[in-house]
């Protein structure tokens, strides 16, 4: 065998291995996705949206409590996390720039983005749940907001930096004060990017279970009391899935399906907005 033939064979083998690993990866992932869709669609019914949780064995059981609870938790987290994230990102891009402080904040947020979410749950437990003496929706929302802030901070920072400096200078030359330049010129220019960051941030925390386990805890009934334990799709899914009851497990899959669709929807929407923004 000549050296060239050998190289050709090695090349084919290597490419075959790489294609094979792509096939393996995809088949596992589509297996999981397939299970999610089959089990989820199977378990889906109108009852899920009408009824709240009930003991195993009851016909009229649903996920209304968890759906509403999830929306409240994620909504509260968004209200807390998004303004803080955007303002912090604004500081980094418009004031901090290349200062040491700005770089430190960027580095720390990068680390926080991958930090174990369960630890944030433990932290919120210690500073909110313990002093208050009970689980609460507030605690859950704050845990989610803490996870959301670094994501939104980093995307806002990146997106604002993409706005050309000449635009800012033009606005300054017209005599606009800095805050007006930022709000009316920089924010406007980076609108699509900031929105995408916000959507991806929401999508990221909406799927989190671990930080909610001991902050908002869970409840099998519908509640809007922010000072009490609040059900969420993720924790409900966890509890139902490890229960020995068939109908609860079914509801768990339905919850998994609904939540995944919501998160995928947010992700796709975020990408579309960014694409549309680029095209302009």
């Amino acid at each position, binding site marked *: 065998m000549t050296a060239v033939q050998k*190289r050709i064979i090695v090349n084919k083998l290597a490419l075959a291995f790489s294609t094979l690993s792509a096939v393996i990866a995809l088949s596992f992932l589509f297996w999981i996705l397939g*299970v999610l869709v089959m089990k989820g669609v199977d378990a889906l019914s109108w009852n899920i949206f009408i009824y709240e949780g009930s003991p195993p064995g009851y016909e009229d059981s649903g996920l209304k409590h968890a759906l509403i609870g999830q929306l409240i938790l994620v909504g509260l987290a968004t209200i807390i996390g998004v303004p803080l994230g955007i*303002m912090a990102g604004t500081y980094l891009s418009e004031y901090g720039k290349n200062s040491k402080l700005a770089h430190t904040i960027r580095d720390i947020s990068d680390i926080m983005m991958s930090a174990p979410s*369960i630890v944030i749950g433990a932290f919120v*437990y210690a500073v909110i749940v313990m002093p208050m003496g009970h689980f609460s929706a507030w605690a859950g929302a704050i845990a989610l907001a803490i996870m959301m802030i670094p994501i939104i901070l980093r995307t806002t920072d990146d997106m604002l930096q993409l706005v050309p400096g000449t635009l800012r200078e033009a606005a300054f030359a017209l005599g606009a004060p800095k805050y007006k330049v930022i709000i009316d010129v920089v924010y406007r220019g980076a609108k699509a990017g900031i929105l995408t960051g916000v959507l991806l941030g929401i999508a990221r925390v909406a799927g989190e279970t671990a930080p909610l386990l001991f902050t908002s805890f869970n409840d099998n009934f519908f509640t809007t009391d922010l000072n009490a334990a609040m059900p969420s799709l*993720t924790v409900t899914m966890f509890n139902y*899935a490890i229960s020995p009851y068939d109908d609860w497990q079914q509801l768990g899959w339905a919850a998994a399906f609904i939540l995944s669709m919501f*998160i*995928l929807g947010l992700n796709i929407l975020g990408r579309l907005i960014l694409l549309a923004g680029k095209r302009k």
Partner: protein
Amino acid sequence: MIDKIFLNMTRTSALLILFIVAWIFVVLFNESTEAMQTFGLDFITKDEWAPNLDKFGAYAAIFGSVASTFLAMLLAIPIAIGVAIFLSEIAHDKIKGFFGVSIELLAAIPSVIYGMWGLFFFVPILRDIFGGMGIGLLAAGIVLAIMILPFMAAVTRDAMNTTPDILKESAYALGGTQWDVIKDVIIPYAKAGIIGSLILALGRAIGETMAVTFVMGNVHHTPNSIMDPTTSIPVTLANEFTEADSSLYFSSLFGLALTLLIMSFVVIAIAKFYFLRKVRKGQ
């Protein structure tokens, strides 16, 4: 005037993140002092975890975290690199776009779903093949590997894509095969980025709770084989936090949380500052 207020508002928000991170460390440290004072180094070297006797040794949980992550990395790294090569070099442009986006979307699927799939669909298969319960270190490692795969493949692909086309073209012009170009041009060029991406994925895997909670078993026992049920730090926290009934128990759980935070902080910091920073400077 408004300018000042605006500056102060944004600066306070930016400083808030530093404050929160420092606060997390302080709180976890404070809460865990009781356990640290009671057990000292035994906390991380002994594996007897007996809440009824007020004895807490976290060795099994720490071992389980390290072992399951190691196993997951062992399985995921070759496949992720294969997928990344496929995505950046082999696939046709259309497949590349579709496959690339689906990998990124799969990375967004909540990890609790990977855990549910593991419990209901994968563990039974392991049980049929190896006997026993199916739940244990191996199951946790595999589910973790699958969960981390999309993220790992996506970031590794991004690292490979930083190789300038002109370098690749020169190598092709010299008569290199695709594999020659991959191993002699792309991998050497993007090495720091690839290693950084893999370690970053490791940092995520080590703190992952929901994908492994279902399939690990939550038994405080250092496993003798990869089929043994065991536990990890996040699994212990998820299962026992709301059940803790003594202050020493709580304190030990906070000690676990602090240990986990330090482990993942160090891993992620190495990835970010040692490897990925080089990439940024190189460009």
